[in-house]
C-alpha cells in the first residue's frame, strides 16, 4: 500500500510553531471581527447605558447633589465608573457569540482544524479587546464633550489602559467560562445581571466606596472591578489616588496602584486560564 504523504494539510504543521499560531490567531480574530461587524447591535448596545449614565444621570446628580464635594469632577468620575458596565456587557455579548457558534455556526469546523484549541478563545479575546477599546474611547469622548473634566497624562494613560485591558481579559474569561458551561442562550442571558451588572453597584462606579457600610466596603475591595476603576480614575481623573487609598489605606498612591494592578492581573490570568480550560473540556466528550 502506498500513498503520497506530502500534502498541504500537513503543511500547516511544517512551519515554525510560533508563526503557525500567530497566523491561526490572526485568521480566527479576523473571522470573529467579520461576524461581529455584521451585527452592529453587538457594538452599539453595550454603549447605550454607559453613555446615558455619563451624559444624563451624572450631570443631573452632580447638579442636584453638588457632586462629590472634593476636587474630583463627578461627570468624569461616573464616566470612568461606567467603563465597569461597558466592558462586562461587551464581554457578555462576545460570550453569547460563542454559544451561537456552537449551535448554528462553524465551531465544529474550527475544532477539527489543526490548531491549538486555546486559540479559539484567545482570538475572541483579541476582538473583544479591540471592541472594548473603541467603546471606551467613544464613552470618554462623549463624556468630555458633555463637560467631564479629565486630566490625561502619559503615565495616566498607562494606568488606565493597563487596568481596562486586564479587566477586559478577566471579564472575557468569565464570559467564556459561562458560555462553555451553560448550554442555552436563554440561561446564559439569565446569568448576565449577576455577572455584569451587580458588581457595578458595589465597586464604587457611582460613588466612592468609603461611603458604603463597613461590610459592603470590605466586600467591594474583593472585587476586581473596584481595583480596576480606582486605577482608571487614578490615570484619568484623580492623580492623588483617592480611590486607591479607600482600598489600601496607604499613603503612596503608586504603590497602591501597582498592588491594585496586581490584583486585576491575577484575576485576569486566573479567569482567562479557566475560560480556556473550560472551553477545551466542553469541546470534547
Amino acid at each position, binding site marked *: *500500500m*502506498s*500513498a*503520497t*504523504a*506530502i*500534502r*498541504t*494539510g*500537513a*503543511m*500547516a*504543521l*511544517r*512551519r*515554525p*510553531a510560533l508563526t*503557525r499560531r500567530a*497566523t*491561526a490567531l490572526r*485568521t*480566527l480574530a479576523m*473571522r470573529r471581527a*467579520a*461576524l461581529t461587524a*455584521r*451585527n452592529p447591535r453587538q457594538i452599539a448596545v453595550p454603549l447605550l447605558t454607559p453613555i446615558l449614565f455619563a451624559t444624563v444621570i451624572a450631570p443631573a446628580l452632580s447638579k442636584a447633589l453638588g457632586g462629590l464635594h472634593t476636587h474630583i469632577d463627578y461627570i468624569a468620575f461616573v464616566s470612568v465608573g461606567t467603563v465597569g458596565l461597558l466592558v462586562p456587557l461587551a464581554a457578555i455579548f462576545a460570550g453569547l457569540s460563542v454559544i451561537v457558534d456552537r449551535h*448554528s*455556526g*462553524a*465551531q*465544529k*469546523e*474550527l*475544532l*477539527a*482544524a*489543526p*490548531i*491549538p484549541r486555546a486559540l479559539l478563545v484567545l482570538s475572541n479575546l483579541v476582538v473583544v479587546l479591540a471592541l472594548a477599546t473603541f467603546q471606551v474611547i467613544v464613552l470618554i469622548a462623549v463624556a468630555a464633550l458633555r463637560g467631564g473634566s479629565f486630566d490625561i497624562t502619559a503615565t495616566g494613560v498607562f494606568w488606565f489602559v493597563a487596568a481596562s485591558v486586564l479587566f477586559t481579559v478577566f471579564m472575557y474569561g468569565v464570559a467564556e467560562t459561562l458560555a462553555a458551561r451553560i448550554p442555552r442562550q436563554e440561561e446564559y442571558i439569565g446569568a448576565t445581571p449577576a455577572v455584569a451588572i451587580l458588581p457595578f453597584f458595589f465597586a464604587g462606579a457611582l460613588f466612592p466606596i468609603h461611603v458604603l457600610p463597613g461590610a459592603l466596603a470590605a466586600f467591594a475591595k474583593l472585587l476586581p472591578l473596584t481595583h480596576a476603576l480606582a486605577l482608571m480614575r487614578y490615570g484619568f481623573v484623580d492623580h492623588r489616588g483617592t480611590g486607591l487609598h479607600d482600598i489600601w489605606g496607604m499613603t503612596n498612591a503608586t504603590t497602591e496602584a501597582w498592588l491594585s494592578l496586581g490584583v486585576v492581573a491575577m484575576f485576569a490570568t486566573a479567569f482567562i486560564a479557566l475560560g480556556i480550560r473550560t472551553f477545551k473540556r466542553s*469541546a*470534547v*466528550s
Partner: protein
Amino acid sequence: MQVAYAPDTEFDWPAIEVRALRKVYRGGVEAVKGIDFDVASGEVFGLLGPNAAGKSTTIGMLTTTVVPTSGCARLAGYDVVKEPRKARSVSSVVFQEAVVDGGLSGRANLDLHARLWGVPAATAATRIDELIEAFGVAELIDRPVESFSGGQRRRLEIARALVSQPQVLFLDEPTVGLDPRIRHELLDVIAALRSRRDTTILLTTHYLDEARRLCDRVAIIHQGEIAALDTPASLLAGLGPEILELRLDGDGDAALASLRSRGIATTDAFAIGSSLTIALDGRPAGEAIAAITDAGVRASGFMTRPPTLDDVYLRLTGAPIAQAA
C-alpha cells in the same frame, strides 16, 4: 526551523487504522465496544447503522472531539490521542448538520479552511476557484451562506473540506435531511470524489442504497459493535441471488421457528413483525412456497426479489435500519 511532522516519503500504514477502540460515556453508556478496522489509502469505506449504533462516536474519536476510553486509532499514521493536531492536519470533516459561518460568504468560508489548514495563499486561491467551478457554486459563492439552499450549502461544505486536499475525508451522514432530488444530485457529487484516489473517504449513513453505490467496503455497526465488514457484493452474496419475502397472517417469529425446525428456513432467515424473509439458496421459489404452505404457515402474500443491504442488515441485527434510526 520546526521539525517536519508529516512523513516525507510514501507510507506503508493504512489511511485509517482502528484497534480495539472503545468509548464509555459518563453514566456508563458503552457507545463503542472495542471495534477494529482498517481503511486503505484511496478506499471509500462506509460505516452503516442506525442512530445510537456508535457511528457518530466513532467519527468523533477519529476527528478528536471524543476521547476514546481505550484502544487506539491512527489517521495516516498519526495517533488521534497522542498526536491530535497532526491527525487533524491530514483530515477534513463534512458534518451531519450545517457547520458554516452563515453570516460570511461562501468564499470566506472556503478561505477560512485554507488558512487554518495552512494552505499557501496562492495555492488556496487557485484551488478554491477550481472547487467553486467543480461544485457548481460559482454564481452564489460571494453571497452570505445563510442565503444558500440546503443542497447548495452541502456542496459548499464538501468543497470546503477538499480545499486542504485531505488524506482522509469524513462524510458524516452527508445526505440526511435533504429532499430526494437534491440527495441524488449530491450522491453524484460524492460519487465523483471516488476518482480522487489520493483521498480516503469514511462515510457514515443509514441509507443503504448510498452505501452500495458509493462504498468499496462497508462495516455494519450495531449497538457499538461491528456486525459485518466486507464489500457490498460479498455481503449480498451471503444471502444468495434471490430471497423470498412472505407477508404472514400471524406472528412472524412463531412461523420462523416452525420453518427452522422443519429445515425449510436456515439461520439466514429473519422475521420482522408479520414479515418473513427466507434466502432461497438456489431452490425454486415454488418449491419453497409449497413447503411453507405444507408446514401450516399461512401467508397473505409472497414476493421474490434480489437481496439488498437492508436484508443483510436485518439478518445481522434483527431490526430494520430505518426503524432503528
